């Protein structure tokens, strides 16, 4: 058994490897970690590299994959790539849920038979509050897309990213996701992290390595500690959570991450409920 496999088995290292598929997005959310927007540089990992990384991840002993961006579904090859990734390891793909055309939804149908999940962002139970953070028409598109994914058997998880939410609003939100076909077990509420565009809007909580799970995260710029690591602020990539510039072979950043995790003093596990 490899050191990574042992560390994952013992709970020392999280089992998921994140792949930043791209950095561009059709939205420009106020708290976006990566300052993504339609004109952002794409910085795609690319199909071939993502598959190779997934293959090495499973060989090293990682147990799951995450795909994020940017908006990954802006990449034309993504539906079929997700199916291929899910054939290697269970995969969750993050999406803003606004680009699911009928044709794209049909191409996602094979995911129903695979260990694959699409995590869609939905922050508020009402359009106005939701769209203030995420842009016009976001709410309508998301609540339209989720049941259509569910109808096709695709497992959907909803991620709510908020500065704060009271019990009443949370109950309305949970009522909404249940009506959309998403059970409570597939709904996560998490804080805004004060990185990227959230810094400019004075939003969120500060988060460092002590707060963030040590999930190996691969981008075109290098390997990072957590998918909250490779953030962009003022157009510049943050490197404070950079592990290595080398991403392939994956064993290079994996070994460095393991060294960092093992060097932490006892009791330094992640404190924030950031998933």
């Amino acid at each position, binding site marked *: 058994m490899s050191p990574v496999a042992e560390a994952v088995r013992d709970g020392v290292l999280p089992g998921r490897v994140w792949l930043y598929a791209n950095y561009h997005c059709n939205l420009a959310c106020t708290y976006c970690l990566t300052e993504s927007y339609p004109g952002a540089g794409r910085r795609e990992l690319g199909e071939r590299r993502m598959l190779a990384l997934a293959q090495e991840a499973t060989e090293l002993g990682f147990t799951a994959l995450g795909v994020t961006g940017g908006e990954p579904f802006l990449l034309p090859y993504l539906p079929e790539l997700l199916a291929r990734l899910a054939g290697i390891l269970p995969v969750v793909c993050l999406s803003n849920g606004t680009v699911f055309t009928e044709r794209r939804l049909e191409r996602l149908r094979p995911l129903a038979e695979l260990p694959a999940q699409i995590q869609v962002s939905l922050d508020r139970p009402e359009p106005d509050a939701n769209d203030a953070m995420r842009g016009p028409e976001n709410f309508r598109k998301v609540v339209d897309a989720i049941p259509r994914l569910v109808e096709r058997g695709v497992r959907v998880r909803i991620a709510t990213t908020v500065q704060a939410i009271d019990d009443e609003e949370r109950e309305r939100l949970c009522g909404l996701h249940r009506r959309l076909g998403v059970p409570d077990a597939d709904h996560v509420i998490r804080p805004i992290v004060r990185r990227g565009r959230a810094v400019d809007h004075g939003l969120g909580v500060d988060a460092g*390595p002590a707060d963030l799970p040590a999930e190996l995260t691969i981008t075109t710029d290098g390997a990072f*500690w957590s998918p909250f690591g490779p953030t962009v602020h003022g157009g510049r990539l*943050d*490197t*404070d*959570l*950079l*592990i*290595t*510039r*080398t991403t392939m072979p994956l064993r*290079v950043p994996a070994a*460095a991450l393991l060294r*960092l995790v093992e060097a932490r003093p006892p009791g330094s596990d992640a404190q924030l409920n950031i998933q």
Partner: protein
Amino acid sequence: MTGVQLVQAEQAPLLARRYYANGDPGPIVAALAHVPELLEVTMPFLDAALGPSAVDARTKELVILRTSAVMGCRYCIQTHTVVARNSGLSVAEVAALRGPQPLEEAFTDPRELALLRWVEAVAAGPGPVPAATRTALQRHFEDPEVVELTLLVGATLLLNRFCTALELPTSPKVLRRLAAEGWA
């Protein structure tokens, strides 16, 4: 103006942070911090090659400063002028190592002159190093010392080209000291 941005403390990658723990780590670390996995292996190597070892500090500074002068590395010449002075080399010796005056004006010990000829032959390259120069060196130094000193030339060459190519800035503290002592 440097050839690359130097990584500041707040952006220091995880593997680089320990080098920033006591303040400004200097431009070599701040440049290497862009690629933490290289920083992580390069600095221990440079520490082992250039730092305290079985060979005394004076002898090592002869090698470092002369190599840097042969290569014309402004950063290394300035920095190691100060280090060499701190290691006990006289003003005349440092001036001779920096060139262009003949080394024999400041150095009379045949052991040190043999070493400096070896340094010049190795650093000036390319192609083979004359056997006679190596034989002269080996009259005064054992094989482990020859190996260490030759590697020290190589490590200094690496630094010379790295610092020159990236136009790394000499620290203000070094520049003040050089000015106070009348070095150009």
